[in-house]
């Protein structure tokens, strides 16, 4: 029938309005429900958030006891920290006169403020822990080997950024804990003076003083330090972290996904291809394979939708749930207002730096700059010194690897315990020879002794077994065990004056 233009227009308008919700949906999601192979591919490829993931995921990558989800957990914690951090920023003021009171407001006045603060604090500690565990996982599964060396480097950079984020955030409450922890930290930044003073060149070349002044915005810890730390903590370091995490995840895709054991390349039928392609694809990348694949999935892989996303969602909810429960049960610590005239005794850094502080108690420069520098350099070099391709994707390489790790762990535990006991009982060089030159102590102290023994032991392992992988396993295990033991000593066995106490109950009164 013939309608007038007006009638046609009006009925078209109403009809379109009726079809609105379907058209709106289809304008966003251009494919059908993800039940067919094609739609399962489309949903991943055409969604900006999901397309970070591959369309096919190998079964090994989804195994809980392969990765323990540590990378994902670290990323989720980072997201939670960003959100809780922004929430805290609504009330926090980075002023030495106001900061402490604002933290108190958050804790006692703002509804849910204590919960936000707790989630931020415990989330931060958890993230440092999970990134360290993630690094250990990547190492022990050999997932740093070619072609993944650069991703290992990115991971190391992210480790430094994570520690920097935690360190800068630590000052912001401006309480006694924060102030004196940063006093220790900034003194470590200036500890190059130990060497330049001993060489008599501080008046010409003072990198220690320069670094410390740059960090604090002055010679004392005051308003400028707080402002610099705040800016680093809320803008600079998170931006760097987000950039590096993006590249880190990108590299996982480009390196062929998460590592896995070598496999025989076969394929299996998955179903007929649907007729009528909706688009043509340009060439994105060439990947190695045994033959062309049509209508099949590579052996051992499955579609990312829905299994991978269910896993991610479940993991996020678990992390969130655990964090909330811990935050409801335990309050973040807050001591009295920062007072430069009353040092905390003992003045302890956050837990992940306590191993370092134990070393620093022997020599500032060696424990604060030399040994961490050497450790980071050593960790960075691992993928470039160990070029063997065997044993990727398997925990600890094989039986010899497991034995090597065990032997190294036990040797380190025994050795470090003996060394620390020795210094507690007998002291160190200056206690026997008060006039000894400082450079001797900087070069020869428990920290440098430990590092030297690590280097010798792992070099000997490489020589004995002819395998750089076993040498790397030995070195990394020694580093992890050493770090854990020194952290334990710094946390539980050191009291006022950094003296040795078996437990906190033995500390003298007044602390």
């Amino acid at each position: 029938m013939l309608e007038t233009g007006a009638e046609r227009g009006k009925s078209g308008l109403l009809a379109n309005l009726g079809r609105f919700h379907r058209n709106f949906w289809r304008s966003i999601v251009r494919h059908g429900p993800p039940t067919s192979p094609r739609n399962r591919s489309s949903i991943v490829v055409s969604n900006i958030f999901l397309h970070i993931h591959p369309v096919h995921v190998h079964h090994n990558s989804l195994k809980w006891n392969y990765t323990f989800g540590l990378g994902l957990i670290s990323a989720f914690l980072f997201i939670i920290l960003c959100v809780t951090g922004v929430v805290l920023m609504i009330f926090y003021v980075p002023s030495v006169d106001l900061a402490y009171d604002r933290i108190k407001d958050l804790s006692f006045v703002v509804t849910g403020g204590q919960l936000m603060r707790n989630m931020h604090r415990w989330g931060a500690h958890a993230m440092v822990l999970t990134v360290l565990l993630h690094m250990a996982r990547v190492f022990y599964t050999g997932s740093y080997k070619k072609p993944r060396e650069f991703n290992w480097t990115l991971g190391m950079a992210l480790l430094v950024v994570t520690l920097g984020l935690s360190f800068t955030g630590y000052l912001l409450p401006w309480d006694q804990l924060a102030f004196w922890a940063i006093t220790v930290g900034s003194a470590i930044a200036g500890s190059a003076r130990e060497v330049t003073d001993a060489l008599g060149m501080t008046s010409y070349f003072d990198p220690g003083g320069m670094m410390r002044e740059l960090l604090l915005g002055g010679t004392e810890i005051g308003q400028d330090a707080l402002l610099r730390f705040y800016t680093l903590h809320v803008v600079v370091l998170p931006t760097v972290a987000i950039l590096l995490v993006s590249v880190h995840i990108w590299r996982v895709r480009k390196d062929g996904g998460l590592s896995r054991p070598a496999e025989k390349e076969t394929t299996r039928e998955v179903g007929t291809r649907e007729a009528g392609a909706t688009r043509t694809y340009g060439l994105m990348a060439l990947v190695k394979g045994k033959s062309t694949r049509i209508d099949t999935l590579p052996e051992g892989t499955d579609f990312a939708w829905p299994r991978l996303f269910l896993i991610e969602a479940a993991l996020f909810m678990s992390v969130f749930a655990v964090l909330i429960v811990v935050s409801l049960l335990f309050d973040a610590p807050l001591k009295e207002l920062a007072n430069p005239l009353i040092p905390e005794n003992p003045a302890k850094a956050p837990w992940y730096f306590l191993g370092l502080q134990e070393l620093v108690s022997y020599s500032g420069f060696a424990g604060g700059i030399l040994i961490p520098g050497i450790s980071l350099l050593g960790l960075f070099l691992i993928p470039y010194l160990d070029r063997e391709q065997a044993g990727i994707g398997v925990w600890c390489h094989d039986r010899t690897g497991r034995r090597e790790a065990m032997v190294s762990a036990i040797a380190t535990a025994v050795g470090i315990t003996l060394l620390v006991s020795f210094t507690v009982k007998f002291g160190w060089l200056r206690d026997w020879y008060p006039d000894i030159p400082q450079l001797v102590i900087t070069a020869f102290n428990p920290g440098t002794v430990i590092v030297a023994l690590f280097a010798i032991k792992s070099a000997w392992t490489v020589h004995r077994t002819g395998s750089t992988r076993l040498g790397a396993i030995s070195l990394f295990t020694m580093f992890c065990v050493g770090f854990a033991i020194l952290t334990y000593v710094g946390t539980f066995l050191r009291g006022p004056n950094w003296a040795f106490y078996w437990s906190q109950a033995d500390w003298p009164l007044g602390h």
Partner: protein
Amino acid sequence: MSKEIDRRGFFTRLGLVGMAIAVGQVFVGLFRFFYLSVFYERSQIVRIGRPDTFPMGTSRLFPEYRFLLFRDGEGFYAISAVCTHLGCVVKRTGDQYLCPCHGSTFAADGRVTKGPAPAGLKWLQVTQAADGQLVVNLAQTVQTGTRFDHA
């Protein structure tokens, strides 16, 4: 024998070097931006009063400035109370100084006798202002043993 370079290559290299210098200058400028020209802190030069307010045998701690002032037969001297290890304030116990943070011990004249401190307590410069007040310069170190005999 150096490799030959054509005109285009030469000017390209010249341009790249120029760009590198320019970018380098940007970073130098950035560094100088963050490095302070003026400290937003109180002055490091401290006036502590007229010499006659400190009789012979004085040994007084100034906790807010972190130094001790002494007067003996030879004159005035000031010793910094900041431990040279990691910056904690030392406590006087008898004729020794003990740092609470890691147990560094210093003798009466500041020399290190025990602990991880890499150097002795610094002696600070003592002078006299035009109006007669004693002035201690917290940023200026003098040799151990230097005394200031006031006018």
